[in-house]
């Protein structure tokens, strides 16, 4: 009996090994491999806050992908370059990259990336104060996205953003609530953004008390993610909420904390 068990185990193990060996890795060219390597290094640089380095590495990756006409790689790296340039404060350069992607007549890019590009374009227009254009690009992003798309959370945040900047409290609350539900599962930056936007909509609706817990949750996430600008924003909005609630003594230290972050960023 023991012998039978032993042979059975050996047989199962051999079968398992065979199945593992039969698993074949897809062939990837040297150039593609190098482009992947540049892309991953750039991502790490971006996460460390080394935006200039990230930009250079993404450019390398984009050149390699263009050389082998890797359409998905071209779209991804162009989008990433737009994001890096936005982070660097070069909105015009970011817009140029997005233009290249959105108005390309020669290549057809995946809808997911086209939707992301349109959403990013909308964010850039909103940043420039052009609410109408931002709205148009948000619609465009939805059109690219369709029903099956991962950009739903970002687009909802964009729409909530647009409503906040337009001082439309109802719409802001509507879209931020949708953004909260769309991004809750992910629980990262976009969820924190949704929380902050929901708080802003509450502030617009003069419900400062409702805004405080939302902002405290957003602050926790942003601290965990290590995003100084977002932390500063949360603190300032919290101070604003406390002031609205007539608690100036609580607002002052929050403002002081925000100032210290600004000072550390500008050093």
């Amino acid at each position, binding site marked *: 009996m023991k012998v039978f068990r032993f042979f059975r185990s050996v047989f199962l193990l051999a079968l398992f090994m065979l199945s593992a060996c039969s698993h074949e890795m897809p062939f990837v060219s040297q150039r593609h491999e190098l482009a992947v390597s540049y892309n*991953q290094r750039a991502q790490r640089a971006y996460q460390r806050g080394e935006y200039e380095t990230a930009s250079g590495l993404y450019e390398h990756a984009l050149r390699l992908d263009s050389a082998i006409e890797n359409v998905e790689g071209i779209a991804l790296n162009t989008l990433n370059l737009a994001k890096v340039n936005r982070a660097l404060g070069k909105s015009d350069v970011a817009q140029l990259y997005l233009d290249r992607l959105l108005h390309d007549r020669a290549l057809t890019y995946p809808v997911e990336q086209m939707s992301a590009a349109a959403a990013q374009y909308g964010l850039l227009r909103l*940043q420039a104060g052009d609410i109408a254009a931002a709205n148009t690009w948000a619609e465009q992003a939805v059109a690219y996205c369709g029903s099956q798309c991962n950009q739903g959370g970002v687009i909802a945040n964009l729409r909530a953003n647009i409503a906040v900047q337009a001082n439309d409290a109802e719409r802001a609350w509507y879209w931020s609530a949708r953004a909260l539900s769309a991004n809750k599962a992910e629980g990262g930056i976009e969820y924190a953004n949704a929380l902050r936007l929901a708080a802003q909509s509450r502030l617009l609706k003069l419900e400062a008390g409702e805004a405080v817990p939302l902002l405290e949750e957003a602050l926790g996430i942003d601290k965990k993610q290590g995003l100084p600008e977002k932390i500063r924003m949360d603190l300032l909005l919290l101070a604003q909420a406390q002031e609205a609630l007539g608690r100036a003594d609580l607002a002052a230290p929050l403002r002081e904390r925000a100032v210290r972050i600004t000072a550390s960023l500008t050093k």
Partner: protein
Amino acid sequence: MKLPDFNLGIQQTERKTRRFMWAAFAVLVLVSGVIAFRQDYFVRNTSVYFFAPNAQGLNKGMAVKFIGFKVGSVQEISMESNASVKVKLSLDSEYVRLIGQDAKARLMKEALVGESVVEIIPGERQVRQVAQNSVLEFERGQDAGSLAESLAAQVQPILSDVRQITASINNPRGDIQQILKNLNQVSSGLRETVTQLNGLAQSGSQKLDGVYVKVDRALDKANSSLETLDKSLPGLVEKADTTLNHVQSVALDLKQMAQVSSSQVPALLRNTNALVEDGQETLKGVQKAWPFNGWLPKAEESALPLDGYVMPPELKR
């Protein structure tokens, strides 16, 4: 004397006379040959002509030269009915091919006071060579007399200028005399200034004496300070020496270390490079191999997360 002996004497005299006559004839022929050779009778000649306004400086037998070489001679000089002079040149046919129809015959001296020659000046254009009885253009070159005349013509205006300048210098109302007068006045003024300066220097030297005393005191103090420094310097120098020795020995050690390692460093770097490459290859292999490929993040390009938040303008830094 017997008749046969007499006849024999006459025969000997005749033979001697004949020999002398033959020798004389041979000498005559030889001399004639030499003369003929000297007169270029054995050279094939080409005769050319030129016409000169007068025969001054032209002589029969005169050398004719072409670019410094004798190529012929003046063979004949004769007066024409129109009172011009016709000169016949005999040119060595060998050189005629070098002389074009547009060549000129120029009468010139070989040096300032040398022998006169007829120089053939080659033409500027490439034309047909001169032929028998061709006529060349003639011109006279500059001799010493004409050179002196041209020199005199050039010097004359200079001499007249010099005469004018001398007159201007001598003129008491002229510019130069006025300048000299002014200079005289200036020099007398200068003399007075020098006298004043002397006085100033004397008073200055008196004041300087006081300054010297003060400087002397300061120097004394400086001397005493230097003496103190002198005393303490040897110790300092000794310490500095020791420190430098230490530094030197450390530098020597470092140099030795560098020398020892210099040969090993490139090899080490190469090996490290190879090791890193091997490591990368191995890592790549491991990443692709089961079961690690399931554990590691996929080797594919990814998008950065999109930040869907725009800071309100009133909260911007």
